[in-house]
Each structure stands twice: as C-alpha cells, then as structure tokens.
C-alpha cells in the first residue's frame, strides 16, 4: 500500500469511515507522521463525523409482542351459548293423497270461478228475466200441447220439475226489490211418466227462494202465446196438471245458475273421505 500526496485524501476518507484494515490504518498514521501539514486536513475530516446522540424511543411498549394467551372456554359455558334453530313441522303426503288434495283444490277453484262469473252476470240476469219468463211460458204451452196431442187423459200428467234456483245472496238482494215476476223455470217434459211411480203432489209450483208468485199450469201467465192457448181451449177435456216436486237436494245442486250433478260430487267427497280414513289407518 502506497500512500502519497496524490491519493492521501481517498485514504483519509476511508480512515475516518473505518473502512481500512489495521495495516492500512497504520499506513495512514505513518503518512501523517511523515507529513504533518496534512494532519489539519485529517482533523477537519474527523470533525465531519457526527457524534451519536442518545435519543430514546418512548413507545417501545407498543412494539413488544406478548406470547399468545390461551383463550379457552369451558364446554359447559359453550353449551349455554349454542342456539338451536326451531324445527319446522313437516307433513308428507303420498301420491294418492296429493292427487286427492289437488283435485279438491281444483274443484274449489272452479267453484269460486263460477261463483265469480255468476256474480258478474247479475246485471245481465236482471235484464234477461222477462225474456226467460216468456220463454218458460212458451215451454209450458209447448209441453201442454204435446200432451194434448196424445189425447190420453190417463196420462195427462205433466210432471213439472221445479228446480230450486239458488242465487247468491247478492243476487237475491239485487232481485228482491224488483219482485221479479218470473224466475227461470226449467221444465222437463216427462211424457212417459205414470202417476203411480212418481209421488205427485197437488201443490202449486213453489218458487221458494225468491217468494215468486205461484202458478198453476192451467193458469199459465199471459206471456204464453195466444195461438197455443187457443189450441188448448178448443179441447173440451179438462186437462189437469199435477206438479211433481222433486226438489231433492241430493239430486242436483245449483250454484249461480250452474247445475252440478250431486251424485258425481258425492262420489268425489266419498273418495276423499276414504283417502283420509286410509291415511289415518296407515298412520295408526
């Protein structure tokens, strides 16, 4: 290592920065001893070295890491924290039951639908009442004429099936003030009937739900066409008509002018009941 006047400054920097080996340090010190004029320059460089200050970081406590604490909870206490979700009541149906329920639901929807249609057609019923009465009168006259044509007084029995017309309450309220003179009367011509097989009553036709006026067949309303009346009056043989009241609720059901066969409905209800009975027995 050769320190001279051209490269001494570099060695001085390395000397004050303590980057030299002990031998090199000794060489620098030897150079200063041989050239005292450079001693001041080395002293000036030494003055550029900062003396460490005693500065303390006051928040060491924030930096420390504590050992992980063992956080354990007793199982008894844990059990008190558990929450159980309430179980839902579950009903299971077999296929037959599902079909039965679906059919009942469909029937119910149909009935509601027809009820709605019947309600909405109340206004049309009001206007059509007089027309239907006229038509019924014509039906009566036509039936009467047909029986008279047979000229068989023994069978001159006109069975008039009066069918109860059940209107909805709303319809009743709508129609009651008007005191409708005629309701829809459906008549069936039963020419083959004989008096012995069918219970005959001499009562007049009764239209009970609406307190409609009662008519005897021989007192047909004025709406009956005159031609028919004339034809009937020409026949001298008095014609008696007996009203056959077959108002049995189990034969037919009328809901909002809709005729439903009660027997068919009864069959459905019977099947439905049988299904439930079966299910009950299976459950047992």
């Amino acid at each position, binding site marked *: 290592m050769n320190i001279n006047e051209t490269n001494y400054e570099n060695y001085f*920097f390395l000397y*004050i920065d*303590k980057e030299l080996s002990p031998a090199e340090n000794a060489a620098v010190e030897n150079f200063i001893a041989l050239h005292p004029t450079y001693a001041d320059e080395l002293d000036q460089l030494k*003055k550029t070295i*900062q*003396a460490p200050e005693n*500065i303390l970081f006051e*928040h060491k406590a*924030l930096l420390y*890491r504590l050992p992980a604490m063992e956080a354990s909870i007793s199982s008894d206490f844990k059990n008190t924290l558990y929450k159980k979700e309430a179980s839902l009541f579950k009903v299971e149906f077999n296929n037959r039951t599902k079909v039965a329920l679906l059919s009942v639901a469909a029937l119910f929807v149909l009935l509601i639908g027809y009820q709605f249609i019947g309600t909405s057609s109340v206004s049309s019923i009001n206007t059509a009442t007089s027309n239907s009465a006229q038509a019924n009168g014509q039906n009566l006259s036509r039936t009467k004429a047909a029986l008279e044509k047979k000229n068989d007084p023994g069978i001159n029995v006109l069975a008039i099936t009066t069918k109860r017309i059940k209107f909805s309450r709303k319809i009743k309220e709508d129609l009651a003030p008007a005191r409708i003179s005629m309701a829809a009367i459906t008549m069936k011509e039963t020419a083959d009937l004989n008096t012995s097989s069918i219970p005959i009553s001499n009562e007049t036709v009764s239209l009970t739900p609406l307190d409609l006026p009662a008519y005897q067949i021989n007192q047909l309303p004025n709406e009956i066409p005159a031609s028919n009346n004339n034809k009937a009056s020409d026949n001298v043989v008095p014609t008696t008509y007996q009203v056959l009241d077959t108002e049995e609720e189990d034969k037919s059901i009328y809901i909002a002018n809709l005729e439903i066969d009660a027997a068919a409905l009864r069959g459905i209800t019977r099947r439905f009941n049988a299904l439930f009975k079966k299910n009950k027995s299976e459950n047992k």
Partner: protein
Amino acid sequence: MREIEFNQCVDDYANSVYRFILKNIGQVEDAQDIVQTAFEKLWVNRDKVEPLKAKSYLFTVAYHQMIDHIRKEKKLSTTDNYKEAGAKVIYQKDHELKQILLAAINELNPTQKSLVLLKDYEGYSYLEIGEIMNLSESQVKVYLHRARIFLKGKLVHLEKVAS
C-alpha cells in the same frame, strides 16, 4: 424468529432506528410511525428474517418508509426550513461544533444525509449501507465522500466566519 427474539430486537434497535429516522425527517410523530411500521413488517416477516439480520432489515424498511414519507409529504421543503434554522445558528455565531455540523448535515440531500447518519451513528460498513439503501458499495463510497467534502467545506467556512 420467535416473540422473545423479536422483543430483543425491540430492545436493541428501536432507539437507533428511531434516531436515524428522526434525524432525517425531524418530526417526532412521523418518525414514531415509521419505526412502528418497520417493526410491524419485521413481525409479519419474522419467519423469513434471521435474527442476526434483523437490524439491517429494520433500517432498510425504515429507510424506504421514510423515503415514501418524504415523497408524499414533500418533506424536501423542510430541508429549506433546516437551512434557515442552520443559517440562524450561523448568524448567531454559535461556535458549538455540534450545532454547526447539524446545520450542515441538514443541508445535505436525503441520500447523503442518510449515508452520513448510517455511517456515523450506526457504524455500518459501505456494503451494509448499500444493502439498506439499495446502492452499490462504490456508490456509497462516492456519495459519502462527497458529503464529507461538503461538510468539511462548511465547517471550514463557518470557522473562518466565526473567527
């Protein structure tokens, strides 16, 4: 690195890291935040950092945090404040070498200031300083020598003014 070794690092290096940062930026709260961030990163990476290299790691992280902080806060302007403060010291003809040198150091650019502080305060070698500051050994040597020449010139000049 386990908790006990980490806590030992806190005992050994927290002061020096804090001093290094505080001397560089001159703001206590920011320096504390940077130190805390440095130790937080050491804890996060404790499995990767060997205990013997923890000090170097802490200074490296703290230095880069400081550079980011200076860039964000534009702390370079504070250097001017230090210059003004140093000038006041000069004009008051305070001959205390320490204060003069402090004023002179504050006139250095951040890289040179960090080099001087790491060398003088912490006694790091050129190689270690280069690792911390992401510089080569020769770069550290050249930059540090330039800083010494600047400080020397300042000291000589002020001594002449004072005399």
